[in-house]
Every structure is written in C-alpha cells, then in structure tokens.
C-alpha cells in the first residue's frame, strides 16, 4: 500500500478562505484519482462537510477519540490522502496535539507524508502564527497560502516585516490562490456542491443542474489556475510517490 499522506489546512483566523482551499484540494485529488477522505473540525456544523458530504466527517482534533478516528486508521482505510480542515485559530494546538500523540515522530521516520497548508490572512497576526507553528513543521511540507479568492489585500505590512517572518521558515513554499468572480463564488455556495461538480453542471446528487454557462466558465478557469499552482509545487508527486522530495527554499522574502 502507498504511504499515507495527511494534509492539514489551517489559519489563525476565520474568513480567510481556509475551507475554500480545502475544497480545491479535494477536487484536485478527485481529478487525479487519488482516494481521499476529509475531516472537518468546524463542529458542530462543518462547511467542508456541506460541500463534500460523502468523504467528510466532523471531528474535534484535540479530543482523543477523534484523534484515534483519524490517525489510528491511516494505514487501514482505502483513502491514501487525509485532508484535515482545522478550525480557525486551532492550527498551533492541532500541531501540538500531533506532536504529543507521536504523529510528528512517524513523519520524521518517513512513515507518513505530511503537509501543512497555512492560509495567511491580511493582518500581522497571521504572521505571528507562523512563528507558533514553525517548531512543529520541520519535517512537513509547509505551504504558505495567500488566498485572493475574495480579493483579500495582502502586504499591508511593510516588506521588511514580511521578510523577517518568512525567513523563519527556511523550507516553506508560497502558493497564491487567485481571485474568483464574486457571483460565481456565490452560486457555488448556494449550490453547495464541489467546484468540479458545479463546472460539470451537476447537482448535489449528480443530477443535471442548470447553472449559468458563464459562471461555470469562470469557476473552471479559476480552478485550472489553482491546480496549476498545485502542479507547480508538484503536489501530486509529493502525495502519490510518498517519497521525500527536496524542499525548494522560500521565495516570499524576495517578492
């Protein structure tokens, strides 16, 4: 069996599009025919579960029974990839919990592929979070995600401050999620289906839908650009091969 892979998607605060990124990841793995399951820690009502109900379970990753549900099953379930959408502000406690249960040790030994998608907000607080999470991610693939999906403006902070924080992560890679047309985004929200399903003009149960061709076109184009970012970081290779790959150095400080 291929080495299991765990992807944690987190952010320091809500409203930065964390779940949107998790949704694009699930669509990406679906398109690459990689069996995937997801855990949504937005208890009791998970947004990720609303869009991907068939593969998503709602959990609290700081509770032992739920930790067992996720991590004790890594080697036994059919799904090769496990995506965990961590509730806003819970990224550091979650990583700490992963260390405590020995998960990070297994990553260090190469038994599990581990990636963190850290979704940045536009405030300086999101950079503080980098400092908190850095000690737990030395053996993980660490991705700093600037999410422009709702046109969030970044770098209100000056470049020197920005560089000072980003330099603390020597092996992080930056990803940009481009802006999506507002009306297209809204319509997918209303439809409550994966982006791929919306593009294919299907309803939640696979039934034919009647979404706007224009909005489907916008979503298809946007999703293609997001996936191009995942291809650029060779996400599929990282997950499918399950083998360590040389980490490119962070580019952010130079931008």
């Amino acid at each position, binding site marked *: 069996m291929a080495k299991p892979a765990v992807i944690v998607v987190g952010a320091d605060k809500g409203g930065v599009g964390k779940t949107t990124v998790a949704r694009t990841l699930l669509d990406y793995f679906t398109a690459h025919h990689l069996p995937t399951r997801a855990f949504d820690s937005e208890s009791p009502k998970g947004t990720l579960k609303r869009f991907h109900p068939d593969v998503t379970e709602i959990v609290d990753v700081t509770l032992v029974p739920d930790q067992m549900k996720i991590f004790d099953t890594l080697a036994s379930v059919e799904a090769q990839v496990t995506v965990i959408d961590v509730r806003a502000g819970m990224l550091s406690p979650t990583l700490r919990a992963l260390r405590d249960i020995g998960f990070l040790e297994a990553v260090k030994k190469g038994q599990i592929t581990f990636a963190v998608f850290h979704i940045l907000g536009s405030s300086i607080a999101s950079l503080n979070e980098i400092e908190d999470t850095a000690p737990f991610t030395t053996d993980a693939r660490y991705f700093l995600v600037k999410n422009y999906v709702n046109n969030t403006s970044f770098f209100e902070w000056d470049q020197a401050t920005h560089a000072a924080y980003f330099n603390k992560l020597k092996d992080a890679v930056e990803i940009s999620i481009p802006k999506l047309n507002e009306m297209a985004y809204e319509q997918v929200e209303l439809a409550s289906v994966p982006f791929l399903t919306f593009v294919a003009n299907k309803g939640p149960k696979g039934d034919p839908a009647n979404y706007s061709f224009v*909005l489907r076109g916008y979503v298809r184009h946007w999703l293609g650009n997001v996936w191009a970012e995942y291809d650029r970081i060779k996400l599929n290779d990282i997950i499918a091969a399950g083998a360590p790959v040389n980490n490119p150095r962070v580019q952010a400080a130079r931008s």
Partner: protein
Amino acid sequence: MPQPAPVYIVASPRPRVGKTLLARLLIEFFRAGDRPLVAYDLNPRDPVLAGHFPRLVRPIDIADTRGQMMLFDQLIASQPVTRVIDLGYKSFDQFFAVMAEIGFAPEARRRTIEPVVLFVTESAASIVRAYANLRKLIPDATFVPVHNEAVSVTFDKEDYPPSRAECRMIRIPRLSPVVRGVIDRPSFSFGAYMVATAGGPTEVHQWIGTIFAEFRELELRLLMGKLSASLSRRSAPAWRGRGSF
C-alpha cells in the same frame, strides 16, 4: 448533420469604422431570408442598432457579470437561430477576454454554434496587432476580415489573413456622401428599399446588392467548410474529440 447556428460578431477596437452599419446590413440580409434571428447591441451608452430594430435587438452592458450572463448564456443555448452582435469598441477588450476565459468558442463549436468574427480592417499597426492577438486568443472562432472602403483606402491584405482559406475578405464599397446620408436615417431599411423602390437600379441598389452577395457567399463558404470538415472527420480512422466539462 445538425444545422449550424452562426454567431456573427461585428468587431473593431476603434469607433466609427462602420460596425453598426455592417450589423444593420447583416440583420436586414437575414430578415430578407426570413431567418430566425436575434441581435445584441453591446454599446450600452449609445445603442444605435437597438434604435433601428427595437423589437429585434437587445441592448446589453457586459461590464458586469449579470450582463455577461445575459449575453453568453443566451448565445450558448442550443437553438437554430442566427445571432448578430454589434460589439462597441469600449466593450471590445472585455468581450473577448470573457469569451476566452469562459471557454465560449470551443463549447459553442461542440454545440454546432459557429462564432464568426467580422473584423473591420484598418492600416494602423495597432489594429493589425489587435487582429493578430485576437486570433491567438480565440483560436476556435472563424475570423473574416471586412474592408470598409469608407474608412480605409489602403492596407495590406497580408495583415489580415482569414482564419480559413475559404473565408476571404468582405468588401463594403464606398458610397457617395449624399447617399450615405440617406441610409443613415433611422427609418431607412435596406430590405424594404430593395423591394419597394421601383424605377431601375440606383447606386443604393447596387451597393446593397453587392454586399448581400458577399454575405451569401460567406454563408456558402462557411457551410462548405463545415461539410468538408464533417466528411474528413468521417473518413478519419480514430477521431478523438476534446472532452468538455
């Protein structure tokens, strides 16, 4: 083979080159043949075409997403209708950018809708570049250059190659200023003039006749192109179409 439903897009990045006149002529040509027809005026501030044909032409502003949906969602609907778009120069960039981004042309072709860009030629280098860039941006559309002799006398035909060899340039002959004044009247109808005005051919008769003959030829060439493409597909051993979302 299903009947092709062409979408004629009359375009130029410059104002006052005869786009609305060309759209009027097309509409009257198709109406004379009782063709099911819908037209769109993409000049939101000054919808002159809609003024000529208030019952037939829908003015649309594509600056926002709602307007884009109103237009492209209708264009992509599988109906055996001929569509004419008078694309105002202010909407030129956005129209083609949206068209490319949403993948309109390949999907249209899949539904036997044929986008045909009637591009009004000029000798200016910027317009030649715009034509070349547009062809790269929308490779699935058919490009037909249109030479309006009233706006450009000299230009190099090599600068405006049609996207298909059979779709050669359409020529709009120059009219004398007095006659031009007559056809610019809002109430003037080319079709009605051809039928109603007795007393032998006039300059306007000849002018309209020449242009309608060009349109007829273009239609035939488009149809021939479709037929030969269809035949070559049938004879190909293992044709694989590109999937669509």
